């Protein structure tokens, strides 16, 4: 009888599967991603490599010496071990993160705007106490501009009523406000010493959300040629909540990672962060094969660093509060060795 190997499901639960079952999940994961995104399936060598990583009972795994990558860290710290700057210091000195990020719990540029002087002061203190580059991060979070939270008619209410033009106009109006807010907050953080700006979970509200990040990125790049700008995505696919928005003549709705990378690069970003969400009902083997298949076409043509989102429900790491090290380290190794990525 084929031995059973402990492995994880996408929700983090520990299960046992045979090597043949894990192999079948890897094949199914790459096949479904290839079909959805119309990209090539992983090669047999790549699937065999993933099987070596995932069909193992080892508690931990890692890349080879010399193959290490850069760790940017959106949402650095737990906010429960001291103040936020102490969190950043802990991540620099103890965890060994390369690029910690100052952030606030209401992780949205619109929310930060009202508290920007205090955030800037925290950045200034962080810059005095850390040697690592420190970026400031928040979500574009376009939905915040729609009623009742914001002043713009709510497109999610207009769309089901068939009021398509009004819904589109609302998103365009919100997009302009968001671009202003990202610029406002970024200017303040840069004045306080920030090394970089992170637009995290970009595209969460669809193509207008993504357009705002790209537009703000281009404006920031023109003003600050040296600035680190990271655009991390919300998912593998840009939702067409508007459907007709373009950046440099390219329609944003429906973009997969390779097309996302192209517009992020054109906008002037330093780092592109693809995100592929977890299916909690499938194994981590199925999820990693699916994620790598989606991202591989981008990794092959990238001219800027790619930092894959790998945590708590994205990039092959289970959707749970405390992702187990066995699953996390396997995702780390898989992305580095298969895709030759530049960081996390």
């Amino acid at each position, binding site marked *: 009888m084929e031995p059973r190997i402990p492995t994880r499901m996408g929700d983090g639960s520990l299960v046992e599967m045979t090597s043949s079952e894990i192999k079948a999940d890897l094949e199914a994961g790459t096949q479904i991603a290839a079909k959805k995104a119309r990209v090539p399936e992983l090669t047999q060598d790549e699937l065999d490599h993933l099987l070596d990583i995932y069909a193992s009972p080892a508690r931990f795994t890692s890349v080879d010496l010399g193959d290490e990558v850069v760790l940017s860290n959106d949402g650095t710290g737990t906010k429960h071990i001291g103040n936020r700057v102490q969190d950043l210091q802990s991540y620099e000195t103890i965890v060994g993160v390369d690029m910690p990020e100052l952030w606030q719990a209401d992780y949205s540029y619109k929310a930060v705007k009202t508290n920007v002087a205090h955030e800037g002061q925290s950045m200034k203190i962080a810059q005095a106490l850390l*040697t690592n580059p420190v970026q400031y991060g928040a979500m574009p979070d376009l939905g915040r501009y729609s009623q009742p939270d914001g002043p713009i008619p709510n497109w999610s209410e207009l769309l089901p009523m068939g009021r398509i033009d009004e819904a589109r106009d609302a998103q365009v109006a919100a997009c302009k406000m968001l671009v202003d807010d990202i610029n406002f907050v970024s200017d303040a953080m840069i004045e306080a010493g920030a090394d970089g700006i992170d637009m995290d979970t970009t595209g969460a509200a669809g193509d207008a959300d993504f357009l705002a990040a790209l537009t703000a990125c281009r404006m920031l790049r023109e003003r600050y040629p040296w600035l680190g700008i990271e655009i991390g995505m919300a998912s593998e696919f840009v939702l067409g909540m508007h459907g007709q928005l373009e950046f440099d003549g390219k329609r944003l709705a429906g973009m997969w990672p390779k097309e996302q990378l192209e517009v992020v690069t054109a906008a002037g970003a330093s780092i592109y962060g693809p995100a592929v969400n977890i299916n909690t009902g499938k194994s981590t083997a199925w999820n990693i094969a699916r994620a790598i298949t989606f991202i591989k076409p981008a990794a092959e043509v990238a001219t800027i660093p790619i930092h894959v989102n790998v*945590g708590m429900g994205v990039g092959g790491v289970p959707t749970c509060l405390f992702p187990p090290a066995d699953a996390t380290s396997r995702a780390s*190794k898989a992305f580095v060795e298969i895709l030759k990525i530049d960081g996390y």
Partner: protein
Amino acid sequence: MEGAHAQAAGMGGMRAAGDLVARMQMSKRMRLKEAKEYVAGKLGCSTRDLSDPVAMELIRKENGLGLVAMTSSTQPGEPGMMEAKFNIAEKLDVHINCVEQFKERTSKFAQA
């Protein structure tokens, strides 16, 4: 989770040279291989040394690039934090925002 990533595949930040490679990715948009080769070239070491805390302790000390302060190796006479970032900017020929702000805000009043 971050600890697992750091142990599985991370460069170690300023415990090694991850912070230096990160700066090249951020400011010069270099991919990993190019960034590692650039930093190694500037420091006169191998790219493998960049992730090695033992090799980098000596290299960072020689170049004043900052060391992690800990009970067994507190070195208040060595460059730390902001001082180290002045040296990193010079050594890597990279723009560090807080260093430039520091120069501008101090020299402006010194001259007045």
